[in-house]
């Protein structure tokens, strides 16, 4: 890990009219680090993720990102064209519902290849080869390359979404409840896959989840949110094994023991 942060979120606040979405959140993310944002529904996790990933402009506060040239840039001061280019090359966004992140009516190969074509790749054979390679890496049979995602199971769709995001070699991936709605065995395989990809590629990631087990498996550090505020922040193992705040203690003790 480098000593310079990759992403710096400074006092980000989002109000929905008079209501608080998230308030005064300050956090940094270092290269190769996975940060989990946990909390119950309505605690502002997704609002925070959307503010950081430029999908939702915050009411106040700044989000800075270290570009590939080493420059720290304020995301909301960039031009829209540059921001969108960043989103589809250097970043990935894995949605909870794969239908939001995939084009359901074009083939798996085209879904993976879209980002390559968007950055100017114009060789069909190479695009297809790259798509096939990535399908293999997320454990989808290469002979499904011409099938549409709507013919895929939930777990396959989620893996396809991951492949689509990683094909351009991003440095930062946002995940919003990546295992939501999947049964436990599929969840376990997906988590395995994400873990190995993150380790192999040295990705940084921000993972929003309400599932503390997912957070423990994937993340190095953890933010606990309640009512739009960060109430606890620390190494994942520390937060889960020795929760300080009463709410975090409640959250940890609510994990179902099997």
């Amino acid at each position, binding site marked *: 890990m480098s000593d310079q942060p990759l992403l710096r979120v400074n006092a980000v606040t989002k109000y929905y009219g008079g209501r608080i979405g998230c308030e005064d959140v300050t956090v940094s993310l270092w290269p190769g680090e996975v940060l989990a944002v946990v909390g119950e529904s309505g605690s502002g996790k997704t609002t925070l993720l959307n503010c950081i990933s430029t999908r939702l402009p915050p009411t106040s506060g700044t989000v800075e990102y270290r570009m590939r040239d080493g420059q720290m840039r304020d995301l909301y001061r960039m031009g829209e064209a540059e921001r*969108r280019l960043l989103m589809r090359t250097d970043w990935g966004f894995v949605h909870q519902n794969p239908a939001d992140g995939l*084009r359901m009516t074009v083939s798996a190969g*085209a879904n993976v*290849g879209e980002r390559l074509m968007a950055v100017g790749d*114009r060789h069909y054979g190479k695009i297809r080869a790259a798509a096939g390679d990535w399908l293999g890496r997320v454990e989808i049979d290469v002979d499904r390359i011409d099938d549409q995602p709507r013919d895929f199971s939930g777990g396959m769709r989620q893996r396809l979404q991951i492949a689509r995001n990683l094909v351009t070699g991003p440095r930062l991936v946002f995940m919003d409840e990546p295992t939501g709605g999947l049964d436990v065995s599929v969840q376990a395989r997906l988590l395995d896959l994400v873990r190995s990809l993150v380790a192999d590629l040295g990705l940084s990631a921000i993972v929003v989840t309400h599932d503390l087990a997912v957070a423990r498996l994937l993340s190095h550090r953890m933010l606990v949110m309640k009512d739009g505020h960060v109430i606890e922040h620390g190494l994942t193992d520390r937060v889960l094994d020795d929760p300080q705040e009463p709410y975090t203690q409640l959250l940890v003790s609510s994990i179902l023991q099997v």
Partner: protein
Amino acid sequence: MTIQQTDMATYNFAYLDEQTKRMIRRAILKAIAIPGYQVPFASREMPMPYGWGTGGVQVTASILGPDDVLKVIDQGADDTTNAVSIRAFFQRVANVAVTTHTKDATVIQTRHRIPEETLGKGQVLVYQVPIPEPLRYLEPRETETRKMHALEEYGLMHVKLYEDIARNGHIATTYAYPVKVEGRYVMDPSPTPKFDNPKMHMSEALQLFGAGREKRIYALPPHTEVVSLDFEDHPFEVQKFDQPCALCGAEGVYLDEVILDDKGGRMFVCSDTDHCEKRREEGHRGPLAAEAPEMQS
């Protein structure tokens, strides 16, 4: 008083009122200034249903002057219903001269074809466009497609071509084949066969596109670079026909298939009727020319 005079008195010249024509001309000027960009305009109700060429008719009405010579084609033919009625419409409301000869026309309104004869300086080709947005079937949100045009995000266009190759082994899009204009805007050339795409490139004629229902006008000024999108390993190519026109023997032209009987008999003839007639007048004969009915005057 003749019938024609009565009708002329009922309508303003070329049907539309002068304010509307000014509004459309402004849109046209803007479209010419930004080749390939879709300019919104306040499309009017026309005395014909949407999809029959209301956009093309409004553009033609706005640029038509008393000295113009109008030609109207539909699928390349001067004698189909749509072409005949639009031509008659402008004869009644503008009393302009009309022709079927491509080289004599100053304004040519077309649906689905570009004439075979190379268009020259001073000629205007007006296209009727049903769906001006090339990204429409890939991205249903208009707000998003406008943003994509603005930011030049055209990766999605190649996704469509990729799908074609993945499914069919080659780019199977044969009409409305997307083009890039002057290296900037991706444009839908209206449902012309891709056979005609190369004719748009560096044309000496002004090309105007009107979409009435979708309320958009776009344009290609003369000498504009128009490049059909493709892949390096699947380059753009036009349709090829393995036989000449059955009536005039022309090769390298776009042919229509005509079913002759219910026993599988068929012939391929020029889709551009004016081109075919001219060649036959010049004495060219195709293999089935003798069997064909005498051409009408």
